[in-house]
């Protein structure tokens, strides 16, 4: 069973992301929810996930900080990180990709946007 961590401070956004991932092919996955980057890091202490999905603007530890902290650890080197944000533009996308994001996706997301990304992962 695939393990997916979804980090977003909005419960609505987490629900929306999980539904999208389920429809897009991760319907049998185990989803673990985090309200910020700090909670996601705590979940990652149990070991890498098959996929980490994170929002950008979150309290305590932001998505950008989470990305940098995770990428700084060798054990998470192979773990794909999707950044889902309302603040995507080409400059930000380039910055996040250079920081180690696998993909940067604009909100609102949809299953059809997620399908090719998840297919490329598997």
């Amino acid at each position, binding site marked *: 069973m695939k393990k997916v961590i979804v980090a977003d*401070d*909005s*419960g*609505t*956004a987490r*629900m*929306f992301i999980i*539904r999208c991932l389920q*429809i897009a092919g991760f319907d049998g996955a185990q989803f673990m929810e985090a309200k910020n980057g700090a909670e996601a890091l705590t979940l990652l202490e149990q070991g890498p996930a098959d996929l980490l999905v994170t929002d950008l*603007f*979150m*309290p305590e530890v932001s998505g950008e900080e989470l990305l940098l902290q995770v990428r700084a650890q060798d054990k998470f080197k192979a773990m794909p990180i999707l950044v889902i*944000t*309302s*603040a*995507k*533009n*080409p*400059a*930000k996308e380039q*910055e996040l990709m250079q920081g180690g994001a696998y993909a940067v996706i*604009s*909100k*609102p997301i*949809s*299953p*059809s*946007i997620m399908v090719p990304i998840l297919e490329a992962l598997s």
Partner: protein
Amino acid sequence: MTSSENVTKAVFRAMSDTFEGMAFMQISRLEDESPDTTADDMIWSRVDVKAPAPGFMAIAYTREVGVRIVESLYGMLDEPCSQEMLQDSLNEIVNTVIGRCMSLLVPAGQTFELGLPKTGEGWPDFEGAEIHGFSTMDGGQLLAFTDLGDLDLLDGPLEVEGFGGKSSDGDEWGDSGDSDDAWGASGSQDSSDDGWG
């Protein structure tokens, strides 16, 4: 402050994309009708723009409209719509709308930074903000408050198809851009077609 035409167009496009993409709701601008500012059961959420220049956007609607939006977002609810769900969904909506809006107004090579949503109840008194009125298909009103005057950084006019007129298929709804085909190859936005239940 009066928004530039680009800001008004960007707000329209961002509102349309977000409500259609998240809640399968089509909205239209209130062009000949003034928004109802007398409702006393409003909830609102505001997100500040921190960079490249200060500004903000807030969205407000009544609880009744909010419940309908939550039902569209979540599908069938097992329990009554809570205040937390109302506020959290509104936070996510305004966060998405301002992000899309800024993506349209800020040149591609420049980043922007947003704050976290702040919420409140009652009539939102944002002095100096411009009010943009929208209506859902069932008549619910949505109000967007903006002060983004200095954030229109584009050199030229923003092209927003369907803005201020009829769309190509003759209906009165504005074009909602890339969200039109975002729900799969069928092109349908009916939630049941895509398994959203």
